[in-house]
């Protein structure tokens, strides 16, 4: 359903993506791993049309993803949550509904439901993003990403900065949207527990290329030194 073919992206002289080829099937949960700074977030932004690849093609359902035309079907959790400072949390979560003219009381009710799903109380709804902790902002961002039940959802490090119990809630939630709604998801994570909990397929990005793909079980058994380094936390020889 999402297909990337030989995608290149540089910033000035820094080549970040150097020929990424990757497929994500309908209803699949793909997890993207890779060292910090390897270009995972940039790859996501290319699919979303927020960055334009220098070369290569990205298609969604066979149609080019750039210029951005699938945004109504996409949900996105940014690495830094990217909540709008000027709006209270519930207006952030229900942003899309408010822009399309939904009544405010109804939108607020739905926002509170979504906040509940990510483990945030209704009290948080009227607070501003600057009043929340980093992990709470992340979860509010997650509520915004899943608000309008998109069928393609991107999560950039959804569990980073969360305690293990909250992280577990979020992993269950992500797995839930895949299993129950049939959404297609791409999740970036550094967290092995998350990989096990949500991945149908794992891909590793290194040196601007996908150097390994497989199912989670193969991850631990892999003899690839970079994959082994990710699993054991020891630098690759």
């Amino acid at each position, binding site marked *: 359903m999402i297909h990337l073919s030989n995608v290149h992206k540089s910033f000035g002289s820094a080549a970040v993506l150097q020929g990424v080829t990757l497929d994500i099937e309908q209803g699949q949960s793909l997890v993207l791993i890779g060292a910090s700074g390897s270009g995972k977030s940039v790859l996501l*932004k290319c699919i*979303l*049309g*927020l960055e334009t690849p220098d070369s290569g093609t990205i298609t969604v359902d066979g149609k080019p993803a750039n210029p*951005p035309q699938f*945004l*109504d079907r*996409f*949900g*996105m959790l*940014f*690495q*830094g949550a*990217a*909540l*709008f*400072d*000027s709006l209270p949390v519930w207006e952030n979560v229900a*942003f*899309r509904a408010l*822009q399309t003219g939904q009544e405010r009381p109804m939108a607020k009710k739905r926002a509170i439901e979504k906040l509940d799903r990510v483990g945030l109380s209704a009290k948080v709804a009227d607070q501003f993003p600057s009043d929340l902790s980093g992990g709470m902002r992340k979860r509010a961002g997650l509520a*915004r990403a899943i608000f309008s039940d998109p069928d393609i959802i991107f999560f950039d490090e959804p569990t980073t900065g969360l305690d293990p119990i909250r992280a577990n809630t979020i992993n269950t939630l992500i797995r839930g949207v895949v299993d129950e709604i049939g959404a297609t998801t791409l999740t970036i994570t550094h967290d092995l527990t998350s990989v096990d909990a949500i991945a149908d397929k794992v891909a590793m990005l290194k040196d601007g290329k996908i150097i390994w793909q497989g199912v989670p079980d193969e991850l631990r058994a892999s003899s690839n030194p970079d994959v082994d380094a990710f699993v054991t936390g020891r630098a690759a020889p």
Partner: protein
Amino acid sequence: MTRFFALIGAASFSALAFLGRLSFFAFDSLRHIVTPPFYGRAFGTALIQIGFLSLPVVGLTALFTGGALALQIYAGGARFSAEAAVPQIVAIGMVRELGPVLVGLMVAARVTSSIAAEIATMKVTEQIDALITLSTNPMKYLTAPRVLAATLVTPFLVAVGDTIGIMGGYIIGTERLGFASAAYLQNTVDFLEAKDIASSLVKGAVFGFIAALMGCFFGMNSDRGAMGVGRATKSAVVAASVLILAANFVLTEAFFSA
């Protein structure tokens, strides 16, 4: 020597490219002002932020300037026995030039800086990206309401500034310089023409447009990081101030050159 010309060439080339991007941005924001969807709430907030909350600073600036103007004209006029012209010259000076220019510069200081810093921060923290992914055009949601609000509300600020400036002159004129109250006001009203007031308001609209546009433009084009936000804010205020003064000259020329 060729190096020197190459440098000049490169500099003028990038200046032209900059002007091109700026005019494109200006036309783009105008286009988004007139095409739906319209963001009423954002527009309302911008009106209050730019208009209502600028009133104190505009009032104070105009009051002191009007007072100082009256003192100067009296002192200067005394050298050729023209002290009596204080009401007329204060009126014309405030309405034609000082009112719009001071309000324009105050709006640049207050509004351009806050718009630039806010939008640049949104850019740096990926809030602009988030807007796009939520199917909302940042030009429509952020730029259009601010530019429209500033263009509509700055003429009102100018009208307030003109009036308070004249009042500043009146207070000094009657309390310190011995003018009769009724005669001072009568002189002011008789002397001002419709064209003076029209030029004042038109200048206000143009300056408001420039102030908000610069804030949005430099904010949207901010570099990454806190340094980027700082630089965007500084550049926006400088560009707005210079452009306001330049536009003021052009408008004065257009309205009043014989």
